[in-house]
């Protein structure tokens, strides 16, 4: 089954990355090694399965110590070395120059515009394809609104500037609301949604999955892998990633935790890379303990004095830890302070540290200003949440914001 998909990818003529990913799964005997050595590998393969473990994949050959290979294959060291060199050469992904990457970029679409002009500029055109984008923020701030808007933009027909693609929406907290989606659609693209049947068609392109446990989640990820290739899926949203991982966390022991966290992470990353679609995940926040303000051991002493004033404020931090933060390519922080809500570009290889004030309207999120506010220093990583807006107090995304919108209509 897996092989079929790989061939499928090749025939579809997707990017070199895909064939590279396929390469490391290739069996050693298919690699075109010198005949004598290939035979040895093939022979040992069947025979050693019981006692020493099989050697069908290059990762086994490459991660075993040379001596083990010598003993296992019955070759001498020089032969083993040349075989390993050969396998490495074949398993190595193709080399490209940065210039050819740039040319590729120019040829194909590689960003999903958010239609928030300032943010699109900061991100060099929008949410990048083939990468993991993370939205972090307290609940009720507008992450789900952002996701719904993105889903809508992908579902739009090409003639209206959309991607005319399907969306997979993994809804782990049952926050997805079709009525809210249609409402956003109606208020942002009234001319499209007024035409008959259009709203249904758009909504029909969004596949909502509601996994309730991590095992279900991983299972559906496997299926998604096939679905993405067969159907024209252009966006994968996981809302929220933190909920499903943390739920699992309470049940399992630390060892399992380590493992179960890692798997979806690397899978999502490889999925994004492999299929060249944008993947958007959301993350919650939790309050940070005071003693948890992390420092390196060499800076421990000098920072103690300055921290007392800051500790009085409530500190929030992303619910999934530092390992997760390293793995995402782009991190957008949604936060509220000094009476406004802001989107901050907290981590991005392309853009400077900027923040945009925004409001949530009936048409979804809109920026108050397209000129980003420059954020100084470490501020870019902090998450604030000042409860000033009354609408925060009423939970549940769609109702809240409908309420908010009608309130604004009433006031305006």
């Amino acid at each position, binding site marked *: 089954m897996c092989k079929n998909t790989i061939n499928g990818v090749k025939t579809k003529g997707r990017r070199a990355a895909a064939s590279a990913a396929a390469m490391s799964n290739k069996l050693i005997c298919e690699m075109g090694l010198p005949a004598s050595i290939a035979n040895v590998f093939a022979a040992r393969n069947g025979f050693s399965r019981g006692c020493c473990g099989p050697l069908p994949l290059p990762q086994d050959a490459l991660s075993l*110590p040379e001596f*083990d290979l010598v003993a296992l294959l019955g070759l*001498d060291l020089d032969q083993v070395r040349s075989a390993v060199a050969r396998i490495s050469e074949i398993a190595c992904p193709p080399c490209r120059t940065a210039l050819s990457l740039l040319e590729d970029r120019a040829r194909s679409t590689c960003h999903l515009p958010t239609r928030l002009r300032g943010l699109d500029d900061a991100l060099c055109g929008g949410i990048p394809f083939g990468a993991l984008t993370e939205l972090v923020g307290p609940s009720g701030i507008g992450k789900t609104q952002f996701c719904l808007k993105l889903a809508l933009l992908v579902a739009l027909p090409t003639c209206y500037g959309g991607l005319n693609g399907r969306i997979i929406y993994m809804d782990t907290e049952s926050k997805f609301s079709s009525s809210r989606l249609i409402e956003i659609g109606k208020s942002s693209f009234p001319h499209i949604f007024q035409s008959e049947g259009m709203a249904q068609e758009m909504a029909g392109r969004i596949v909502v999955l509601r996994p309730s446990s991590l095992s279900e989640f991983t299972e559906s990820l496997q299926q998604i892998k096939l679905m993405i290739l067969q159907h024209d899926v252009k966006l994968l949203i996981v809302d929220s990633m933190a909920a499903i991982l943390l739920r699992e966390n309470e049940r399992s022991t630390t060892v399992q935790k380590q493992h179960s966290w890692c798997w979806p992470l690397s899978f999502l990353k490889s999925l994004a890379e492999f299929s060249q679609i944008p993947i958007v995940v959301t993350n919650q926040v939790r309050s940070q303990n005071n003693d948890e303000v992390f420092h390196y051991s060499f800076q*421990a*002493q000098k920072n103690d004095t300055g921290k007392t004033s800051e500790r009085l404020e409530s500190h929030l931090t992303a619910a999934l830890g530092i390992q997760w933060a390293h793995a995402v390519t782009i991190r957008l922080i949604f936060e509220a302070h000094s009476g406004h809500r802001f989107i901050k570009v907290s981590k991005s290889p392309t853009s400077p540290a900027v923040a945009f004030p925004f409001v949530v309207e009936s048409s979804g999120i809109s920026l108050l200003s397209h000129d980003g506010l420059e954020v100084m220093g470490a501020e870019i990583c902090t998450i604030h949440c000042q409860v000033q807006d009354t609408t925060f107090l009423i939970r549940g995304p769609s109702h809240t914001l409908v309420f908010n919108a009608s309130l604004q209509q009433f006031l305006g």
Partner: protein
Amino acid sequence: MIIKIQVRAWVSPRGTSGELRKYQMQGRGRVAGELERLIDGGTPNKSAVASQVPMPPPRNPRSAIHAKAPVTEEVGEEAVGMEEVSVAIDRRQPPWLNGVELLEDAKWNKHVLPTGCEGIDILLGGGLREGQLTEIVGPSSSGKTQVCLCSALGVADLRLGVVLFLDTCNSFSPHRIAHMVNSQSDTLAKEGKEGSLERIMSSILCHSVFDIFELLDALHQLECKLKHQVKSSGNRIRLLVIDSISSLITPILGGKNSQGRLMMITTGILLKKIANEYNLSVLVTNHMVGGEGGSLKPALGESWKNIPHVRLVLSRDQGSNVCNVSILKHTIMDVAHSDDTANLIRESGRSFGGGLRGFSPHPRQSPPAGARLPSIYCPPLSPHSPHLGSLGFPPPSPWASLRRRLPTSEWCST
């Protein structure tokens, strides 16, 4: 205790022959070649061996018979092919020595090399002993490389001979040594300084090795060179530094086969053999890894533990430049005081002075362990330093303790 060193060196060829046999049964390829070379490759004939032994001592027939008996018995049980090997081993054996001769050998040939760092020198009773394998263990950035550079400089500076530095981490920094030289010899005139810098720097040789096989190759080459080396004073190789040996050995350990461990032991034995026969002092570094419960332990574990004669542990105080040295194992001195530490100030910097500075002396005769003394800057030892005069004799008290310790397990440990 010196006797003990010799006994160990004796045991080593037997150990390898056993391993060789084991290996020939299962293994093939280059590893076997290494072992064969270790046993007979280096020493073509008796006369060469004899000429190497610095003071050809008279044979003592009784000890020879006693010691040889088990070897021949063992070989007798083996297959026919092994006879050649055993003959080679027999021929290879240097003459047996008795205690008095060993003592003479130790007295005349096994000098003490100052490390250039007073604290460590005092702790070790003078410095690095020739004929011994000294190991430095420590976590990352605890000053292991600095001690190595400092010892290399110490030997080169006193015109004792040539230092060979085998570098596995690209951490040998001539710049750093030059800086240490410049900050030490403030008194010299400028041109004298440049001259002495060139002299010192030319007597430190550096060779990069990135592979256990390269290391063994280099050691064999070195052995051949040493064999033909004229026994003169000025430019013989006195100190061999390997920084770090653990990074070469970690990648070959593990897995299902024991060849990795075998290579490690082989390397250890070869190093000790070279050290003993050619009166080199060998200094190796070993890093530390997290063990159970978060505590640190040396990367090369139980099987390596009994190879070095002296093990020093370095640690660095959190957030400061003070490093502590303590003795984990010492075959000559009384290790009962192993919690004695010397403090070093690590000044790893181009704008700073002479590298490691000793602080706080010693064990017994001076203040109780743990008491911090103010920093004492130690000028480099002159060639007429009393440390050199002592020629391998440790201070009297270790002798006393040695007598106590000898009959116990230390004797027979291999």
